[in-house]
């Protein structure tokens, strides 16, 4: 039961697409952050975030740094993270996975692909 999803990406377009893609999850609140720092703020403000969709390439604080900070907080460690990857940045994706992200999906992706991954990851607990 997804109640809150935190999407972290520096592009407003991607956030709009998340809004569309994730509309199928009724009663689920979608929270957006434009970079890692903002994401940390949102985590502190909003309780009960069930899933994080994470872009790597962002200004101010990138995804990997954010992940590292995330791992340090016991409260946030358990939140599943899906890395939103791009071509040419496979190294970063792998590092993110090693840092504890549960999965990834490459841009450009279809909504169904994202849904499939989310379901697998959240079902797994």
């Amino acid at each position: 039961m997804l109640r809150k999803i935190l999407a972290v990406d520096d592009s407003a377009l991607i956030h709009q697409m998340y809004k569309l893609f994730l509309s199928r999850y009724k009663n689920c609140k979608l929270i957006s952050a434009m970079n890692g720092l903002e994401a940390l703020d949102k985590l502190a403000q909003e309780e009960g975030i069930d899933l994080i969709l994470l872009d790597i390439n962002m200004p101010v604080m990138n995804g990997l740094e954010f992940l590292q900070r995330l791992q340090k907080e016991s409260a946030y460690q358990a939140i599943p993270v899906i890395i939103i990857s791009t071509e040419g940045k496979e190294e970063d994706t792998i590092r993110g996975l090693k840092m504890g992200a549960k999965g990834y999906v490459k841009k450009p992706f279809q909504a169904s692909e994202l849904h499939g991954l989310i379901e697998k990851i959240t079902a797994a607990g």
Partner: protein
Amino acid sequence: MSDFQISPELLNIYLEEARAHLEGLDHALLALEREGLDPEVVAGIMGPLHTLKGNSGMMGFTGIKDYVHRLEDVFVRIGQGAVTLSRPLFDRLFAGASALRDAVEQACRQRGEVRSLQGERAVLDALLREITQRTPSGEGSLPSTQSGTTQSRQSGETGPPSTQSQTTVSAPSASSSLTPSVPSADQSLAVSAPSAEYISAHSSTVRVDFSQLDHLLNLVGELIIHRTKLHELGRELAEQKGGRETAELLSAVQQVAAVSTQLQETVMDIRMLPIRHVFERFPRLVRDLARQQGKDIELILEGEGTRIDKAIIDEIGEPLVHMIRNSVDHGIETPAMRVARGKTPTGTILLSAMQESNHVLITIMDDGSGIDAAAVRRKAVDRGLLKADETLPDRELLQLIFSQGFSTAEIVSDLSGRGVGLDVVLKSIERLNGLVEVETVPGVGTKFIIQLPLTLAIISALLVEVSDRTYAVPLGSVVESLKFRPADVHTINGRETLRIRDRIVPLVRLDAFFGLRVVTGEPAHYAVVLGRGDKRVGLVVNRLRGQQEVVIKALDPAVSGITLALAGATIMGDGRVVLILDVAAFFEGRRQALAHGRSRPALAGGS
């Protein structure tokens, strides 16, 4: 079958972001071209390109996505120092950037990729092949597209591991620990080097549709109207009744007035954007134009942070483009000619913006050949705008270059566009309730000064009654208003005029002008004297009805197109629509009358 529909809203967001990224691309190229290789500039553009690539992919614009990917590769190479930065290289890159912008705009307009970037891609492929052949692969540590390793300037720390990590996945962090073992968390996590422009682009802002701001402004406008009414009623009541409750009511009304004023100011403030948004595209424009004409020109921007209403920003771009083109085409001379004149071979154009009390001054100044007043005079006489024996002070003479069909260039260059002369520029500026003046010194340079109001949306107006109708006259253009008697009117050359102190002011009878019922038999009339620079025109009305702040509402083009003298409309507290006069129309008419040497038919007739 698609998962979702590409809605206009989505396209808008994509387009807006893409435009910002493409601007960044232009700037990066300009900076590299002008100042040579700067790793920070290169690092700074990688992020935007990357986002543009991702976004284009998500929208299904694969051609665009692939092209941007190539661009990323080229920049990586540039960042490594593997590319000789030459003029031809930049010509190719700029051409590619233009093609990319074109493809993006078209894709958004047509909601699908239309323009193929194959040709441009081939150019980049060839470029990359050249580079790879010239330098051996796998040199040093590669910045960006490759990995999460450090940038080239930090290569020292991560030399050997990074090379290895290209080929295997299990390299440095081979142990089961989840954190990378490469030294210093910060550096190893540096995925994209922070760059000032890129960082400041986002964070604590909210994206708002401009139409929502308009809506907000409309609501505030209505609030103001009702507030004014409340205030009036309150005062009337106080005069009639008095007493504690009335006093409290008045006090409450005053509070409402105070808050709504703040609200108004805040909303107006939100609509104000830095003029940078307009100025940004000019460096590129000047570069291209200068190249085309074999001239060497430097564009200096000043005061880009000066804020102005978005509605004005949307409209001022085009006139500025024309004027800058003018400076490049006719102002700045070729390097050879400049040297012959004892000038530096590189010409300079200064574009600056500055706020002064309640308007913004935009200046376009060049150190080119200036405007020859004598040539202007000759042309003016030629075109019948001036009589051979007529003399005009230089300042007014120069203003003639804004007249229709006037062009001082011997060769009409196709760059400025056929027939798009300064008269169109003048019209655009006047539509914004602005003014433009020109100063020049032959052989030394020319300066255009544009004055614009800070905002279009709310103005102070003088309400007047003409026949049985009420009209609003923008107070900013009103010099004075006065009562006069029929006997005071003198007819000169078939035109009615009024002597005001030591000036002769031509009159326009609004009832006749608008084809309304002429109210005769009144002992006096009122003249509202409009001023524009040195000129004066008096509008004859039946009554003055006080001043008021009004929110300007646009008139549907179907209506504004047919009437010559309406700038918009406003809504009174009681819901009545009052039309707002377009001050410029009354000055134009006069100019045309001068040119054709006859008076306007509507003004014929006695007092």
